[in-house]
């Protein structure tokens, strides 16, 4: 049976355990995609958030928690657990956090988004299994629910698989 794509837009999150599904998100610039996969139950999730902290707009965070890292990531973990996933088993990877539209990096929102993800995941007791972050390219990320395999396209380049690694952030694609 052909895989069906579940597209995750900006400030959005989707969770599924359908093995025929592929979670996809496009145009990851300074945003961060958090991709989680439970290798036992296959419960998988993809969160695409824009900003690090909800304190700047609590009302907006209430309407859409997936816009911010500090409301989106806990919300995603809760949704994964509700769907039968085990947070302790989750294979977690990050993509995005580029410095786009601002080559001077004045606001460094991409890096702030990335550090927010790391801080919140550390607080949640979750280590990262791989990442493709930073640089100045826009990215597309695709997570196969059946296998947990993660595919990335950077800029106009070829799609490649992000295999599991536990390297320090500096080892990530910049």
């Amino acid at each position: 049976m052909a895989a069906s794509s579940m597209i995750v837009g900006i400030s959005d999150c989707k969770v599924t355990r359908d093995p025929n599904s592929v979670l996809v998100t496009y145009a990851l610039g300074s945003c961060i995609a958090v991709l989680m996969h439970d290798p036992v139950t296959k419960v998988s999730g993809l969160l695409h958030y824009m900003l690090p902290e909800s304190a700047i707009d609590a009302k907006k965070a209430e309407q859409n928690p997936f816009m911010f890292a500090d409301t989106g990531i806990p919300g995603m973990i809760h949704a994964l657990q509700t769907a039968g996933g085990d947070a302790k088993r989750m294979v977690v990877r990050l993509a995005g956090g580029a410095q786009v539209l601002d080559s001077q990096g004045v606001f460094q929102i991409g890096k702030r988004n990335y550090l927010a993800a790391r801080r919140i995941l550390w607080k949640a007791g979750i280590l990262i299994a791989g990442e493709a972050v930073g640089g100045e390219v826009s990215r597309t990320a695709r997570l196969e629910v059946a296998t947990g395999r993660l595919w990335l396209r950077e800029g106009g380049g070829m799609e490649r698989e992000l295999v599991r690694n536990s390297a320090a952030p500096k080892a990530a694609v910049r």
Partner: protein
Amino acid sequence: MPPELEPLPSASPGLDRTDGLDQNDGLDQNDGLDQNDGLDPAPALGQTAPGLQARMDQEPAAGDTIRQIMAEVLETMFFTQAELTPCEHGWLAAARCARIRFEGSHCGEMLLGVAGEAADTIAASFLGLDAREPTGAQRDQVIEELSNMMCGALLSHLWPESKLTLASPELLAWQEWPGTGALHRCFLAPEGTIAISIRLLSRTGEPGAVTGPAEVAEVA
């Protein structure tokens, strides 16, 4: 453990302890500090104190290395970032500060100051806790460990071929640190301000001439 360094020269009467920082902080106008008392204030960002030009030039990488190391340490284990900012030191009187001494092929000391609220948040990030959860003791221990990492990483980057021993960090009020001849930088993190000062000392404890491999008298 490195032996105790010789105590630094005691302050002249009327010397405002906070004027070991830059000349433009507005704190040192009445301290009687002048170029003839042998105690030079640390240069403001982008400035050089008189008499130190040659020695600063001998360690041109130090300022940039501090910036790089600050970024590396904060981003890696504290999940935050900080940018260089013009010095403004009113907050230092209430900051949580830790001093760390080092000895070996280079002798000196480094002082790290973190604004109060920033110290709480940075400690929470390190420990994986909510902002209000760390105890006062935990917060202070995190600041000490941050100073330990900053100092060790900075010295290892500046002088990778050297032989160094770091003492245990100790909490210290910023005003208690003479800071004479120090290289000083201020940083702004989302949580608040951070200041760092580092200086080399001679084996007799005086700022200035250093015996051993370092030709520069001061990292300043």
